[in-house]
């Protein structure tokens, strides 16, 4: 009966991000949500716990105000949440987040399987999962699209550019999952209302070893801009010839 721990990130919903006057990102209108791939991670944790007995819990690093995310995550089926929060946890780097998660998990939080999304839907650095596994000293399998669990042995189907890789490991293990793995459930009304009554264990910066200072300096985050050089070509043989030449010149086609 495995204990399954699932990591999620509470991110700005890109649907509400506007580009500000200076090309910067305006987050003032943004609603927050559970990072898309992390919804798959939560679903997989809950499915595995449902199929094999055991427990599913979530863990997240965030700001003290991010409590709606905890309820959202718990409404999706996990029975417990671990909430590492501090006002200082703003724009953490993947290495810092992984350190905090590892320290809290070592405190200890029981686990046999840790599941993360393949990357977050804001920065998509895809680092927290592998870094966390490294810090905990457990094997890490990324981009998993199917999981079979037999006792203490897990078979993961990994998606890669070359094809499908089927890997067998012994628990404990950390997986990062791709969206194909499942269809996250839509919480019912009762699940939403019950979420606030589930246990939440909090960790603050004081409870954990201090994290390394940021290694990266972010100079700016800008909205993507697309420059169009609208040129019209005539719809005749010469025009088409000209268009093809233009595309070749610009390197769009070889």
């Amino acid at each position: 009966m495995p204990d399954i721990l699932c990591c999620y990130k509470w991110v700005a919903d890109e649907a509400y991000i506007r580009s500000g006057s200076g090309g910067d990102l305006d987050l003032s209108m943004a609603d927050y949500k559970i990072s898309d791939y992390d919804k798959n991670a939560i679903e997989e944790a809950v499915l595995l716990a449902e199929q094999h007995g055991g427990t599913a819990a979530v863990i997240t690093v965030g700001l003290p105000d991010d409590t709606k995310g905890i309820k959202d995550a718990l409404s999706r089926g996990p029975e417990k949440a671990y909430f590492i929060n501090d006002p200082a946890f703003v724009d953490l780097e993947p290495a810092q987040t992984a350190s905090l998660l590892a320290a809290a998990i070592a405190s200890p939080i029981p686990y046999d399987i840790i599941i993360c999304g393949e990357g977050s839907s804001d920065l998509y650095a895809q680092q927290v999962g592998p870094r966390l596994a490294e810090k905990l000293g457990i094997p890490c399998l990324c981009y998993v699209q199917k999981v079979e669990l037999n006792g203490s042995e897990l078979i993961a189907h990994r998606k890669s550019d070359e094809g499908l890789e089927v890997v067998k490991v012994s628990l404990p293990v950390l997986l990062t999952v791709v969206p194909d793995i499942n269809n996250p459930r839509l919480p019912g009304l009762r699940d939403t209302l019950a979420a606030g009554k589930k246990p939440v264990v909090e960790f603050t910066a004081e409870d954990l070893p201090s994290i390394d200072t940021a290694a990266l300096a972010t100079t700016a985050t800008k909205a993507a801009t697309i420059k169009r050089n609208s040129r019209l070509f005539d719809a005749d043989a010469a025009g088409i010839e000209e268009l093809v030449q233009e595309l070749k010149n610009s390197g769009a086609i070889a």
Partner: protein
Amino acid sequence: MDFKLTEEQELVKQNMREFAQKYVDPIAAEIDESGRFPAEVVAKLGEMGYMGMPYPVQYGGAGTDYLTYALAVEELSKSCAATGFTMSVHTSLALGPINNFGSEEQKKKFLPPLCQGKHLGAFALTEPGAGTDVSAATTTAVLDGDEYVLNGTKTFTSNGPVADTFVTFAWTDKSAGSKGMSAFIVPKDASGLRVGEHFMKMGIRASQTSEIIFKDCRIPKANLLGGEGSGMKIAMNCFDHGRIGIAAQAVGIAQAAMEESIAYAKERVQFGKPISKQQAVQWWIADMATDIDCARFLYMRAAWLKDQGLPFTKEASMAKVFGAEMCMKHSIKAVQIHGGYGYIKGQKVERLMRDAKITEIYEGTSEAQRMVIANNMLR
């Protein structure tokens, strides 16, 4: 003063939005065109716990406050006003009177299947000769041993052809004036109940509307709701909270009209630039956004008052009349922003404009709301 929703309320809104995007948006145009009742969506709403939101858990409800329920109606109506209305007429007008006036036995018997969406409810008050003037009704109920015998014709009953449980109204003592009307719970298989004409409508076409005819319809005496003579009081109580649902529905329709308009105005190029760059269009959008906020705050206030146990009759009528009229006005503007394309089937705003009209009519016309408000102001 606090304008913030609770985290639960925000999550319910968000989940209902996702539900509507997944299950309702894909069929909304089709069920409008065909007038088909989306039974599969209503069943799913029941499964997800949305068909008895504000009623106690012990009767199968979800035990939310009224505000949370109204927020869900707004979100659902944004995708399909007919489906939103099916949920709201069932919840406010059919379950409401049973919950508020039913005996313990009646609640235990009727509410659980209704709250779970296994049964659908309807509210049959209006008659061919009795619309705004409820007292002009002619349906009668006569006690015969252990049974009441109902005779009369109800019209415009929403959910009529698909309902399992009706709350209806009949005179038990015409001579007693407004104290002579009584309310009854009538199961659809009661002998002498017949679904009459099925109406074809301008809008909310997927909502099913019909006559309900009682001809020597016999129901157990135990189905009398709230004691003989309390029918008028029960009907008015239903309208008070039902109107919050209609106000929320109107806000949902208007919000959809505005979102469609903004997207279209940014895309449609005339005179070398998007029409959203024209000040005339910008002002229409500004007015839409302002009125929608006003209407939303009005229904939220009415729901909040109700949740606090404070009087809310006037405020519910204000929310309903303002919400309905701004919804009509701006859904017309939304078609205008779409120009000729807005007049063509398949554009969502064409449907929204037809759906908007009913909000000014049912659960008390705009004129009836003004009567309620004026009565309160001039007392």
